[in-house]
C-alpha cells in the first residue's frame, strides 16, 4: 500500500509521516502543494492520498477539491481526508460523487495507529470510511422527539456502524453478534426510518448519512 500525504503544516506533515512509518505503512510522498501530489497520482504511483482539508491559498476547502479531482480523474486511487472539523457537510458532497474509496478522519485519529491503518486498508479495498466522531455528531439526538427516538439502543449502535462504513460482517464482529442478527436489526431500522436498503453497501452508507444529516424522520 503506497501512501502520499498532502498537508501544508510542516510539523503535522512530519508527524503523520512518522506515525505512518511507525505503523509500517509505506509513505512515498509527503508534500505541501496539491500540484506535486496530483502529478504523482496521475503517474499511477499512489494507492491512497491523505489530504488535509484546509490548504493555501484560501485555507477553506481546497483539500476537498483536490480529493474530488483525484476521485473523478483517477478512480483507482483512494482518498482519505484529514480534518480538524467535525462537520458532516464537508464530506457528504464527496461521498455522493464517489462510489467508494473515500474516507474522512479527524487528524487526531492518526494517533490511534490501529484505527488509522484499518481506515487506510478499508478505503484501499473500495469502502467508505467515516470518522466515528462525525457519526456521533449526527446521531447525537439532543431532541427527545428526534428522528432516531424510535430506534432501540442496539439498533442505534448498528445504525452508527453502518454510517461509519462498516460491512455487515464487520458490524457483527464489532458488536459481538451474528451477521443474521445484524440483518434483522437493519431491516427494522430501515423500515422505521423509511430508508431504501436495496442499494449496495456504499450506497447504503450514503443513504444513512444523508438521512442523518437531513435531521428529520
Amino acid at each position, binding site marked *: 500500500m503506497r501512501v502520499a500525504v498532502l498537508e501544508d503544516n510542516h*510539523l503535522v506533515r512530519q508527524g503523520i509521516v512518522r506515525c505512518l512509518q511507525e505503523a509500517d505503512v509505506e509513505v512515498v510522498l509527503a508534500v505541501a502543494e496539491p500540484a506535486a501530489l496530483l502529478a504523482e497520482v496521475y503517474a499511477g504511483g499512489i494507492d491512497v492520498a491523505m489530504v488535509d482539508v484546509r490548504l493555501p491559498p484560501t485555507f477553506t476547502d481546497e483539500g476537498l477539491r483536490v480529493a474530488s479531482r483525484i476521485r473523478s480523474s483517477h478512480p483507482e486511487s483512494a482518498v482519505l481526508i484529514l480534518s480538524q*472539523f467535525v462537520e458532516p457537510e464537508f464530506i457528504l458532497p464527496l461521498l455522493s460523487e464517489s462510489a467508494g474509496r473515500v474516507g474522512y478522519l479527524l487528524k487526531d485519529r*492518526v494517533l490511534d495507529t490501529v484505527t488509522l491503518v484499518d481506515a487506510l486498508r478499508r478505503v484501499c479495498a473500495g469502502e467508505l470510511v467515516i470518522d466515528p466522531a462525525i457519526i456521533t455528531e449526527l446521531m447525537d439526538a439532543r431532541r427527545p422527539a428526534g428522528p432516531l427516538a424510535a430506534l432501540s439502543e442496539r439498533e442505534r449502535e448498528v445504525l452508527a456502524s453502518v454510517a461509519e462504513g462498516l460491512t455487515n460482517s464487520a458490524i457483527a464482529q464489532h458488536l459481538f453478534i451474528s451477521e443474521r442478527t445484524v440483518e434483522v436489526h437493519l431491516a427494522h431500522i430501515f423500515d422505521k426510518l423509511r430508508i431504501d436498503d436495496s442499494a449496495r453497501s456504499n450506497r447504503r452508507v450514503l443513504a444513512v448519512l444523508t438521512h442523518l444529516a437531513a435531521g428529520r424522520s
Partner: protein
Amino acid sequence: MRGSAWWSSRTRDATALALCVLPVVLLLPGAASRGQTALLPATTALVAVGLGWLGELRRGVLVASAGLTLTAGNLAVIDAHPTWAQAASVAAPPLFAGLAAAALLARIPSLVSALGGLLAGPVRLVFYDTFRDPQCASCYPQAALLLPDPAMAKVLGWTGAALVGFALVLGLRRGPHRGLIVVALLTVVVTASSWASLPADGPSLFLIVPAAIAAGLDVGAAIIQRQRLAGLAEALRTGGRTERVLRNLLDDPDLRIDYRRPDARPAVFVDADGSASSGSGDRVVTEVHGPRGVIARIHTDPSRGSLDGLADGLSPEVLLGLEQEQLSAVLASRARELADSRERIVRRGDAQRRALERDLHDGAQQHLLALGFDLQVALASPALSADDRAALDQCRSEARAALDDLRDLSHGLYPPLLATSGLVPALRALARTAPVEVVIVGDWGPRPPSEVERACYLVVADLARRSAGSVQVSAVRAAGPVPSFTMTVLGSSCPPDRALGQRVVALGGSLRQSADGARAIEVVLPCG
C-alpha cells in the same frame, strides 16, 4: 419659470443680432456718411450703458462705457489736429475690438483675442502710413509714421483680425453665447475684408461691433438674472429645496448644490443626503458666501454661463434657507459617518473572529497535533518501562482532550462551515444540534456577503435556542437598485434579541417581528 428662460435667450440673441448687423449694413456703398456711421454705435452704446446700470452689471457698464468713450473720441478727432489724438483714434479701436470680444469668451480665447486686438491696433500703427495707402483718400494726415511699411501694416491688420476670429471660434466650441459669437465672427470677417476696398476708417467698425455685442449680451443677461432672482425668492417661499428650484429656474436638470462641512479642515463638501460630494468635473462652480464663509457651491452647466451675479444678489431669506439646508446636510453626513463606523466595527469583529479561528487552527491545534504525533512515536519505542509508557499514554490522552476543547472553542468563534460552505450548510449543521426542530426551506440562491451570513446565522441560532417549538427558515435575494437579502424565520415564539437587532441595523438592515401575529421574524440586509 420656463417662460422666463425662453424669453431671456430669445431676447438676448435678438437684441445682440440687431446691434451687430446694423453697422454692417451701414458699411454698404451709398450708406450714410461717416458722421452718421459713428453716431449709431454711440447711440446703441448709450442705451447699453443705461440698461447695464439697470441690471447692476459691472461688466456691461464697463464695455459699453468704453465703447461710448471711444466712439465719441473717434468722432471728435476726425476734425481735430493734434496728431497724437488722431493716432490714438486709429490705434485704439482694433485693440478695443479684441478686448470687447474677450468679454464674451473664456480665459484662453479672451487672451488670444486681446493679443489679436493689440496686433491689429497699436502694433499695426507702427507700420501704417496713411499717405502710402492707395485706398486712403480721406484719411488722417498723419497717424504715427514710425516705420512706414504698408505691407507690414496689412499683415498685422490681417493677423490681428485672424487672431480675434480664432478666439471667437474657440469660444464657439464651448461656453455660452454661441449665436452671438457667430455674429461677432461674421462682423470681424466683413470688417477685415473692408480694408481692401473701403477707406481706412474701417477700423471704427471694430469698435462698433463688439461693443454692441457685449452691450446687448450683458443687457440681456442682466434682465434674465434679475428675473431669476425674483423667481428664486418666490419659489423658495412656496417651499422646496434650493437645488430643485434652481434646476427649474435655470433649466439645468443636472444642476447640483453641495454644502460645506464647517467642522472640516481643509474644506469638505457634502451632498444634501450627507454623502461625500462627487466633485465638479467640467461644471462651473459658484460659491455662495454667508456670514461665516462659504455655505455651499452651485455646480452648473458651463454653457449656461456664470452665476456670479446670482450668488452675489441672494437675499438674506434665501441665504438663511441655504444655511438651513447646509445644517441638515452636515447632520446627514455625520449620521452617515456614524452608521459607517458601526458597520465597520461589526465587520471588523467578524473578521477578527475568523482570523482568531484560523490562528487557532493553524497554530495551537497544529502544535498539539504535532505533540501527539511525537508522543505516538515515543510510545512505539520498545525500550520504554511500563511506568514511562503509562505516563506518555496519559500525555497523549490529554493532548487529544485539549484538541477537542480547542475544536469546540474555534467552532464557537466562527463556525468553519459558515466560512467555507456558506449559510445553508452551516444552518443545517446548526439544525442537527438545536434543541428544537429547525427546517430550512426554499432555494436560497447564491451566497450573500460573509457579514450577512454571520448575522443571519446568529439570528437563527438565537431563535432556535430560545424558541419553544420548531421554526422554519427561508430566504430570498432581491435584485434592484439596492440588492437585499431577506431571511424569514416562521414559528418563533420569542421576539428577536436586541443586541442582534443592533448588529443587523449596523450592517444597514432591519430585524423585526411581524405585527400580524404570524410569529414571523424578518431579517433584511443589503448585499450589494
